[in-house]
């Protein structure tokens, strides 16, 4: 079974600075997808970024980018120029051939003004 590990329960960053959230996963599949979801206090689950395992190029979405290391099974999220609105829980998730998402336990990000 796949597992997703987020080793940082909490992180903090100063506004306008850069922060990196870590995620590792375990799978025997070779073709899969990885996601980062943001959950603000409103409780919504918002897709931040996705990475297809067969693509070597790291995904980017504006201020959000990933460092995908397939051999190391690592998928970290970098947030540049952090904003107060980035404060939230961030969940890393894995989706393989079964179409089911497996989530990590999350990292709570605090942005300090």
């Amino acid at each position, binding site marked *: 079974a796949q597992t997703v590990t987020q080793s940082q329960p909490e992180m903090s960053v100063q506004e306008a600075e850069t922060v990196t959230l870590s995620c590792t996963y375990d799978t025997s599949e070779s073709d899969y997808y990885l996601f980062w979801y943001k959950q603000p206090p409103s409780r*919504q689950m918002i897709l931040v970024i996705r990475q*297809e395992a067969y693509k070597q190029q790291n995904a980017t979405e504006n201020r959000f980018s990933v460092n995908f290391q397939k051999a190391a099974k690592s998928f970290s999220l970098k947030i540049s120029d952090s904003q107060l609105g980035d404060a939230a829980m961030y*969940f890393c998730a894995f989706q393989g051939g079964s*179409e*089911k998402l497996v*989530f990590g*336990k999350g990292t709570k990000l605090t942005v300090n003004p």
Partner: protein
Amino acid sequence: NAGVTQTPKFRILKIGQSMTLQCTQDMNHNYMYWYRQDPGMGLKLIYYSVGAGITDKGEVPNGYNVSRSTTEDFPLRLELAAPSQTSVYFCASSYSGGVKVQPQHFGDGTRLSIL
């Protein structure tokens, strides 16, 4: 499009009561999912459906039942509610039919407390 709509948003149940959490989507997605999120944890899959009339168990199905009579609706039934089922419940949907995986769209969640 409303996306994925869950009702109710909040509910308090007594131990042993039953209730149904409603979920409907208007995106014509074939896949639908139910997750629960316990405090300080990620989401865990309860049940999922790949199309009308087809459902399957996820990681934590005990104490729950689902049905999928239409593409749009995927209700989750709790029978004999227990305190361990106190959680936030999320419904999600996605389209699967091509090579590229489509991301899941989530509802706003239902906070359920069982006392």
